[in-house]
């Protein structure tokens, strides 16, 4: 059930009404949240409900045990927390990476001259497993770090794990920030809820008017790259980051919006990534909840471990972290290469000491970005687009073939409709990002004044209904 479908609208209206009838009765609201979350998950993938249910029950008890150890013996707590984290990760490793490891070993042995006849299993990956697993791992590690105590209320904990707006594709909320919200009265003030509607409608707009329409062009080119030359492939490569952004930030904004309408604050996931002036800054603005998670649990421990190696240690920690980011997306060498490519782009920044420096944008006359900044943004965008070409390809050979195809000539322009709509919509998106980045007084959907806000919402909704793509399309990140 996609957020942008009629079915979800009806589902959400039912949830919203029932949920808010029990205002101030947190326990009942948590039950409602849990039931609707499992219903939502069950509609998408009924067979996989036992997986999430068992993992939730297991982690709930592991959390209690870790807390027990933390109070008595730190070393034991550390060891048990690591064991718990691995235990939480096992289903993800099995469902997502088992066949990949088998295949890769088989290929390696074949390359070494051994005759291997290993067959893989048909494994169906539970939807959203990458996202709820990270929530569970985060939970056990945060208890061990004493940043929170183990949750006693099982319903609240289960509702946190299966929270339906975020279960399919994030954002990955941290337990120490999310769980306390389930214990208190939900926010229902005007500005909090209004912000939710704004974010939902904006996400809906970027998804259906930009990502879906742009996707028609990008898919037509990348799925049949043999038919095209440098012109179409070049355009598709440049459009793909924008499609990803419109799609994934669209999903995240809708999830955050739905969360707010349930009176809950969901973690931020995007902060205008294409205004980044280098790759390090790009990662501070893109998929923030994942990069933040990996920074805390992968990068920081590695950085501490390698600190004696100086810059080399930092480079190693960054590269390993980003390769992990890559492989988190799926079991394919293309994702690994995507991470490695980004990791290598960090090296000049580390050596010049600019990795953690915030690159400030200079506004000429208070409203125009300086040419130097624009150039840096453009360069960063090109590098990101190049990396995403590998990310988008089915295999490494397909990625290199796509690049090689660019050298066969200019080729024809891919003739797919809807270009004017997505270009116009894209202008609106970029204008909003520009105004928000510059912290201007005026921006799209920024106002709090009811009349002016209502007019903008009405205009956007009618625009969406008329100019949306032909069919309800899945969000890209749901496959991860």
């Amino acid at each position: 059930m996609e957020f942008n479908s009629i079915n979800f609208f009806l589902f959400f209206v039912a949830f919203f009404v029932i949920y808010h009838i029990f205002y101030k009765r947190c326990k009942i609201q948590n039950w409602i949240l849990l039931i609707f979350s499992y219903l939502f998950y069950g509609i998408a993938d009924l067979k996989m409900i036992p997986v999430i249910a068992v993992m939730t029950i297991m982690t709930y008890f592991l959390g209690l045990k870790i807390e027990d150890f933390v109070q008595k013996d730190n070393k034991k707590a550390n060891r048990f927390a690591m064991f718990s984290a691995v235990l939480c990760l096992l289903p993800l490793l099995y469902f997502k990476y088992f066949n990949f490891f088998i295949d890769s070993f088989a290929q390696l042995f074949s390359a070494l001259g051994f005759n291997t006849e290993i067959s893989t299993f048909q494994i169906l990956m539970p939807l959203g497993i990458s996202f709820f697993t990270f929530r569970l791992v985060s939970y056990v590690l945060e208890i061990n770090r004493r940043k929170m105590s183990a949750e006693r209320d099982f319903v609240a904990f289960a509702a946190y794990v299966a929270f339906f707006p975020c279960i399919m594709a994030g954002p990955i909320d941290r337990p120490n920030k999310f769980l306390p919200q389930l214990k208190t009265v939900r926010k229902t003030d005007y500005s909090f809820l209004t912000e939710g509607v704004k974010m939902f409608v904006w996400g809906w707009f970027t998804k259906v008017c930009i990502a879906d329409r742009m996707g028609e062009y990008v898919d037509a080119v990348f799925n049949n790259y043999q038919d095209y030359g440098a012109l179409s492939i070049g355009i598709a490569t440049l459009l793909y980051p924008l499609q990803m952004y419109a799609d994934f930030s669209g999903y995240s904004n809708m999830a955050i919006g739905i969360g707010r309408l349930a009176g809950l604050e969901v973690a931020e996931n995007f902060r205008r990534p294409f205004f980044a002036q280098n790759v390090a800054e790009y990662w501070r603005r893109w998929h923030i909840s994942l990069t933040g998670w990996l920074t805390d649990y992968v990068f920081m421990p590695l950085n501490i471990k390698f600190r004696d190696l100086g810059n080399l240690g930092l480079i190693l920690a960054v590269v390993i972290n980003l390769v992990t980011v890559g492989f988190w997306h799926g079991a394919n060498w293309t994702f690994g290469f995507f991470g490695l490519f980004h990791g290598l782009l960090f090296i000049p920044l580390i050596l010049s000491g600019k990795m953690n420096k915030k690159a400030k944008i200079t506004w000429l006359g208070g409203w125009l970005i300086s040419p130097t900044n624009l150039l840096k943004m453009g360069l960063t965008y090109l590098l990101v687009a190049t990396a995403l070409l590998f990310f988008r390809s089915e295999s490494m050979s397909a990625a290199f073939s796509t690049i090689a195809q660019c050298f066969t000539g200019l080729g024809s322009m891919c003739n797919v409709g809807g270009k004017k709509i997505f270009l116009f919509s894209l202008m609106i998106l970029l204008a909003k990002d520009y105004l928000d980045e510059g912290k201007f007084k005026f921006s799209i959907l920024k106002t709090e004044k009811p009349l002016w806000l209502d007019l903008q919402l009405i205009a956007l909704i009618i625009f969406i209904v008329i100019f949306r793509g032909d069919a309800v399309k899945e969000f890209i990140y749901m496959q991860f």
Partner: protein
Amino acid sequence: MKDFLVKVVVPVMAVVIIGLVCMEYILETCPKDNYYKRRVEYLADHSDSLQLLVLGQSSTMMSVIPHLIDKKGFNASESSQPARMDYCLLKRFVDKMPNLEWVIFNFNTSTFHSRQIVPGGEGEINLYNYAIHYGADYYDGYNYYILGGIPAIKTALSGDNDEKHMEDDGFITYQPHKWTDAERENVHQKWFSNSPINDEERFVDSIVNLCQSRNLKLILLTPPVTKDSYIDVWLKYSRVEELDKIAGKYKGLKNVYFINFVQSEFIVDSLDMRDWAHCNPIGARKVSLAINDSIRKWEGR
């Protein structure tokens, strides 16, 4: 919460719903596709003299040129026209055509494809146009335009289709359009994979029965497709067997004839075809002359 509901949810929802309903209403009063109107007018004006009526979908629409056939004819086929619509047309006009002798009907697997009749599907705009201009009674007035998005709204507002050109005898040519392999494959997958033979088959039965009862000669015409399309679609999706199975029901019936141009040697893809399933005017000329020869032969002339 109260403020939020009163100041945002209620006014926004109310205006959006009222706005969309009004837009739908306005669009319904717009001219729609003028070609339908012109066809109905043509049929009404010439029904007395017509000897040949062509029914079917885009492949027939673009491959039969009535003035190249000895009989005075009219091509009433249209893109994505479902068999039930063909039956509706024939039933409506047959009594007003005292001189009608021959009916040519598109006999192609897409005739039986569900995409033509699914509400919200690509063929729906045609159903809607027929409902308005031809008075087809099975169509229940599903709100198409707003839900159909921009293409439907554009057609409704302009009433014209820039790509079409209709000649006086009802033969429609389209502006040349070069389909890339990628686009073709997308369309194949979208339209033809897993396509069921749906209940359009009973409307083909009805057309055959109506022709039989009125002693009309019926040609079940399978228009040409490109060699690639034959391999990629007809063979891949077992179209040949499916069509043969249905054709088996009508073989041997009096006054039912078959002409099959799929795999026909005298159609050259690069010269005669506009795209994988539609003739260009040169191909249409060849097909029409071949049909004329067959009619002459069957009439013993």
